[in-house]
């Protein structure tokens, strides 16, 4: 099934160097659909089959393309930022895009970075384009659940000084394993004291 892909990229331009614009190569599957300098914020539009990876490559950047001041702070740079990707009328959620891998190559060092849509190094950012657009929605739902489990997890230092993983149940911190249960006699004492 064909969909219309709209990809918006924002360049970061360094006018202090001879070639101020970043270079980008966009590939869909094996096909190069754009290759050249990115001089202004631009939305690229393609009709695709949604059966391949989309790759955005930032290339030809030199170390000298980054300008720093006397304090070694960056004052101008060449880079590309991915602003959005739309498939038909559906905007691919940022959560999904942040999970995609950015394979960088800088000073002969290779790294895989996630959680960025700012491509400041030479490298390839790879997005799997899912055949069914609604899959992104469920992917995001799942990531939200995962994120809740990461953000909301709790720990508690017990009487022995050990860190114990807990969760809140009915307002009380409860050991996540909860393998130790009070005996019925202990429970009776407990309820009487409530």
């Amino acid at each position, binding site marked *: 099934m064909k969909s219309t892909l709209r990809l918006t990229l924002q360049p970061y331009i360094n006018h202090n160097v001879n070639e101020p614009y970043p270079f980008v190569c966009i590939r869909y599957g094996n096909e190069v659909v754009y290759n050249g300098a990115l001089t202004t914020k631009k939305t690229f539009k393609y009709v695709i089959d949604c059966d391949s990876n989309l790759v955005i490559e930032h290339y030809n950047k030199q170390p000298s393309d980054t300008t720093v001041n006397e304090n070694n702070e960056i004052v101008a740079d060449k880079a590309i930022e991915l602003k959005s990707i739309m498939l038909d009328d559906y905007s691919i959620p940022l959560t999904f895009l942040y999970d995609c891998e950015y394979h960088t190559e800088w000073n002969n060092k290779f790294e895989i970075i996630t959680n960025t849509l700012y491509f400041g190094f030479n490298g390839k950012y790879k997005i799997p384009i899912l055949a*069914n657009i*609604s*899959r992104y*929605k*469920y*992917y995001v*739902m*799942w990531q939200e*659940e*995962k994120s*809740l*489990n*990461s*953000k*909301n*997890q*709790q720990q508690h230092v017990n009487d022995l000084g050990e860190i114990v*993983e807990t*969760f*809140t*149940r*009915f*307002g*009380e911190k*409860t050991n*996540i*394993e*909860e*393998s130790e*249960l*009070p*005996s*019925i*006699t202990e*429970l*009776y004492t*407990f*309820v*009487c004291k*409530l």
Partner: protein
Amino acid sequence: MDIVLIIPPRIQDDYGYTPAGPSALSGSLIDAGFMTKVIDFNSRLDGIYENEPNILASVENFFMYYDFYNEGIFKEVEKYIIDCANEIISYSPKWLGISVFSYNSHRATRLISIKVKELAPHISIVIGGGGIATDFKFPEMLKEQGIIDAYIRGEGELSVVALLQGKTEFSGLNGLPTEQIDDIDSLPYPDYSDYDLVNYTNIKGLLAVPITGSRGCVAHCSFCDIAKQWPKYRFRSGHSIAKEIKHYIQTYGVNAFRFTDSLINGSMKAFTDMCKELTTIRNNLPENEKFTWDAHFIVRNERAMPAEIYDLMASAGAGTLLMGIESGSQNVRDHMKKLFNEDDLEFTMKQISRVGVSCRMLMIVGYPTETEEDFQETVDMFTKYQKYAHNGTIEHVNLGLTLNLLPGTPLDDNKDNNRIVKLNNHINDWICLDNPTLTYKERLKRRIFLQKHINELGYVVFEEKNYRKQLFSACLEIKKLKNTTNAPTTILENLDFDFDSETGTLINNDISMSNNRNTINEIDTKINLTTIHKS
């Protein structure tokens, strides 16, 4: 494959009963020409974590409590859910059907649905079962979010077939009113062929499958919502049930059956016919193949169920009868609309003991009218029947938790007439104005005391560990509820009370009350009332 029917985690019990729902649907779907596959993802969890009980406990907590968050455990859960989703997808079904047993299956239902939709959005998802029978919001919310495509309430056999046939307007579908199936004898047999039945044994370790002889109930007990779910009592002929049992013996080689009925002896004619036929079948089987069955059973008087019927029942293979005794107090049982008295109970106990059939007593502690004296009668009843625990007639006692005010029960529907006020909009936290010292804490105290007492008398408490866990949770819950303030306000707004701060008494201005001045000595209630006064 037309549909994969699954049982998601978590159904917690001490015995791995074969789930009945998906098999019943499968039987009807196969009969209508559809191809089905049933998978039990609940019991599989036990196998995976057989040697890691702590992880199993954490994973269970994850599924059962929405406020459980843990990154490490989520990784375990994620792996399991992805495996489940991939297995479902491997059958290339058009539909996924999820049997939601209770609230404890909600989280897994949601997660499995999301994962299946993410990996295979072309698969449509339908959910149904007891877990959505009274909770209307859960399935509607999932449908609104596009996580499921349909839900079925009420008896699903005909509705699920209609759904797969492409009908959208059918009873029970997506919020449409449910209709009872009148002729349950006409339903195809449930299909258990997808289960590895050796993994499902009953309490005595026998290979067991569920069987349904009736739906609904002849009684209308005040605490029970069966009459609301199934207003009409429908039962199958004894001949038809016996035929189905014979079919299972021949097909699956099982030797035990668990009736899913609310009661097995609702129609004495059908029950007697069934027992006669089962006796004939059993008499023709070698000794080591003779089957037994367990069933819910109501205590009847001697005239309705004379001694010879007990002999017949025993020869038909009766194993354990699950009897709703509920209370040792006649006053409480009368209010509950239980249809037996102390003589009937004594007669029944004597008869089942005589013929060698055992029972599990089902109890309710903390009924709204239960006074200290009533509770003492329950305690005394266990002392009196201790001999039956010792000779094995009383196999277990199921004490439940404390009385829940379940939506759809006569007690809940007639709260005002029964002078019951629900606090904190919570099914466990309520108070009966005619019995105001019976607070949630007092009920829990009686419940825990009773378990302690009958343990000491030598009774076996059914699912003891599971209930101990739930009782512990309930104690923690009370601590939380004690800090709330909205409940007493509700009482004041609705029922015209004043609080005398000098004497610590609640003064009722409602002239319809039998006593217009109730002294509240119970400390918890005082705390709440003080809160009102201050506010």
